[in-house]
């Protein structure tokens, strides 16, 4: 009896939070004249055909993919180098670096976004991948803190021994530190990728045109343009979720672990 109550509570809540997407998925396969009807209907892919022809979904997904991958690579690079350097900082400088990184995480994006926009447009980065990717280094603080947690747990005598053997810093980083960091890199990478994929504000500002932006902003534009045409919009929404959802289905344990670690900060 008690077990039944346990299952019901969790199942009902679980279905409630995933309901919008499940509904979108089921509804997107209905014929366009039966979108708002209730009850069974023939399966139709017309909405997907329309979504793909009315809007450059493929291009938008590609843009999102390139952007998320670029931001992930860049943030990981910065984070690994910084976390490695932090190993040899004195207590005081370390506190300064950690302080500056933490503060950067707390400042709301909206408070920096106008100058970021001015810098990026001044450099001619509007509607470009560079513009979408590089300024999102602003949120690299989380990756740095998480990578730092990983580097400091590497056994000190391992690295000290390498130093005594005369290994140069770059060699130590490449041959000793990086292999130790592999699980950490995966977890932080997934975290950054998913967050960037779902970012809305920055792409909306720097890449406002429908072919050069990411899928999030693309969906918003599509919504303004085709608001009265629910079928294709729902199909597009499903397509926008599909890649990250697929990654999640494969790595769900690692993803929750990565977010958990990030949340602890």
């Amino acid at each position, binding site marked *: 009896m008690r077990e039944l109550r346990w299952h019901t509570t969790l199942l009902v809540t679980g279905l409630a939070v*995933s309901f919008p997407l499940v509904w979108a998925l089921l509804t997107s396969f209905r014929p366009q004249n039966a979108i708002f009807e209730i009850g069974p209907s023939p399966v139709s892919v017309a909405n997907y055909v329309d979504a793909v022809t009315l809007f450059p979904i493929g291009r938008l997904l590609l843009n999102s993919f390139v952007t998320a991958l670029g931001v992930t690579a860049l943030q990981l690079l910065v984070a690994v180098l910084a976390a490695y350097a*932090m190993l040899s900082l004195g207590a005081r400088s370390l506190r300064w670096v950690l302080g500056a990184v933490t503060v950067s995480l707390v400042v709301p994006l909206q*408070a920096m976004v106008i100058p970021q926009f001015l810098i990026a447009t001044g450099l001619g980065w509007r509607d470009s991948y560079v513009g979408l990717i590089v300024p999102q280094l602003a949120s690299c603080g989380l990756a740095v803190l998480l990578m730092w947690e990983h580097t400091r747990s590497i056994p000190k005598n391992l690295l*000290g021994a390498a130093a005594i053997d005369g290994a140069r810093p770059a060699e130590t980083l490449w041959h000793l530190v990086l292999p130790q960091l592999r699980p950490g890199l995966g977890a932080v990478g997934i975290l950054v990728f998913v967050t960037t994929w779902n970012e809305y504000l920055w792409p909306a500002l720097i890449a406002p045109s429908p072919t050069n932006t990411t899928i999030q902003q693309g969906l*918003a534009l599509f919504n303004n343009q085709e608001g009265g045409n629910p079928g294709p919009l*729902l199909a597009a929404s499903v397509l926008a979720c599909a890649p990250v959802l697929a990654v999640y289905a494969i790595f769900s344990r690692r993803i929750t672990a990565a977010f958990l670690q990030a949340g602890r900060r």
Partner: protein
Amino acid sequence: MTSTLDRAAPRARAAQPGPRGRPWLYLVPLVLALGVWVYGPLLWTGVLSLLDWNLISPNPEFVGVDNFVAVFGRPETTNALVRTGYYVLGMLPFATVIPMTLAILLWRRPGRAADGYRALLFSPVVLAPVATAISWQFLLSPQQGLVNTVLSGVGLPAPNWLGDPRTALPVIVLVTAGKIVALNMLLFSAALAGVDRRAIDAARIDGATEWETTRFIVLPQMLRTIALLSALCVIVAGQWVFTNVAALTRGGPDGATDNIYYRLYTEGFDFFDAGSASALAVAITLALALLFGAAALWNRRRSRA
């Protein structure tokens, strides 16, 4: 932490683990990233808040604190501040009690079923926020949406959820809630990992009910996390709802779903009033800094006591 180690073994410097010689060289990318994209912009925002400028004209004019006076004199700003408070209050249960209950439920019966439910409950975090918003927009559509079809089917009133100032803000809160519940559930799970299951088993043997063990053993250990997440909610509830406000209501109807972050965005990128937007940004940043300072002080005093 490492600081005591460093001081205890100064001679170990020769074999320090990080890059020898010029460790700062490896910090250059980080310093550049934060300098150019965080701290530089922050300072620049400070300067912009003292100028009268439309983001385009070649000669902005220095106006001192006029922007602050003007922006805080506007009824829209007061409205946005009040609404930000509503969002905080509305989000609070979804940031604390609900995710904690779910986390405790999952923790009570570990196993395959719990893992499955956890994956399902966490899914809103990985779903594209705009896609979820679009789905809700049709579910809540006043004439044809599923929600109202069901409601009028059982004879209840069918409001215009997003178009009515009375329902729009609660709807935004509910639409955002899934994601926050999911994230915070994970944090409560982390806190629960520190609870000793043997204490619970012992209490059970002594005849304590499940509710009693939860109330007297588990809950006291959750207090810190509850305090932390409540503080977080106060600070960032307005940011949590940003995407949904932008996608579903644009702050309307009649400013009913506005908040201070969306206001800032409107001033800057709809009205091209860099001064007003920056004045708001400076005020928000200062307020946050004060809140964080107070929280840190309170935390330090508690850990000393």
